[in-house]
């Protein structure tokens, strides 16, 4: 599974990209977030909710926007990033 990080997630994790092989029961975006958050203090900081409990991180699976319950599988390209601010 190829994981990409953008903007302040990239800075907090300390990586733009990593290849990971989570256990087979890590089969949704939400489970993957929990699993990735345990990899390092940087990962934990990147995925932590705000003090007021808002979910700041957005996700795309294979370059389409995804939700917490969206499925993930080996071979997927999964990106995490803040709400977009282009334009």
């Amino acid at each position, binding site marked *: 599974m190829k994981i*990409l990080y*953008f*903007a*302040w997630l990239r800075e907090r994790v300390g990586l733009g990209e990593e290849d990971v092989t989570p256990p087979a029961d890590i089969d949704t975006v939400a489970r993957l977030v929990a699993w990735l958050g345990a990899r390092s203090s940087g990962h934990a900081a990147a995925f932590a909710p705000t003090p007021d409990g808002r979910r700041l991180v957005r996700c*795309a699976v294979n*370059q389409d*926007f995804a939700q917490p319950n969206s499925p993930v599988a080996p071979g997927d390209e999964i*990106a995490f*990033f*803040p*709400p*977009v*601010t*282009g*334009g």
Partner: protein
Amino acid sequence: MATIHVQQADFDLGAETAALTGGRTDIGGIGSFIGVVRGTAGGRDISDMTLEHYPGMTERAMMSIAETAEQRWFLQGCTLIHRVGLLRPGENIVLVLAAAPHRQAALEATAYLIDWLKTRAPFWKKERFSSGEARWVDAREEDDAAAARWGAL
């Protein structure tokens, strides 16, 4: 018919408009929007801004939304150019062009495309203030509201 570019270089408004319309005689109106880097944010001076994006997803998503707009407003073509990298105040960030037989379609499609780019295209801005401090720009709720008026994106 859509032209999509993600590039560091500036764009040439006149050349892009000519490329969109070149030689055609069925176009009645061309709407456009150019976004520009402002020199202040929250009352503080900005020295520059860095635009990051998600290569691959960006171009794919921009092409998809351009085709959606072309079908919804019967456009004769549209152009989306978004710059990335280091940009200074006064520099162009983004260009939207939409050509249609009538003005209302051209102008509505222009508004739709820039609203969409602001809320669904994977770009992120990091502002650097004249103090040297830098911060990632927060998403604006008004932008989500503006995009929501078009229905499901």
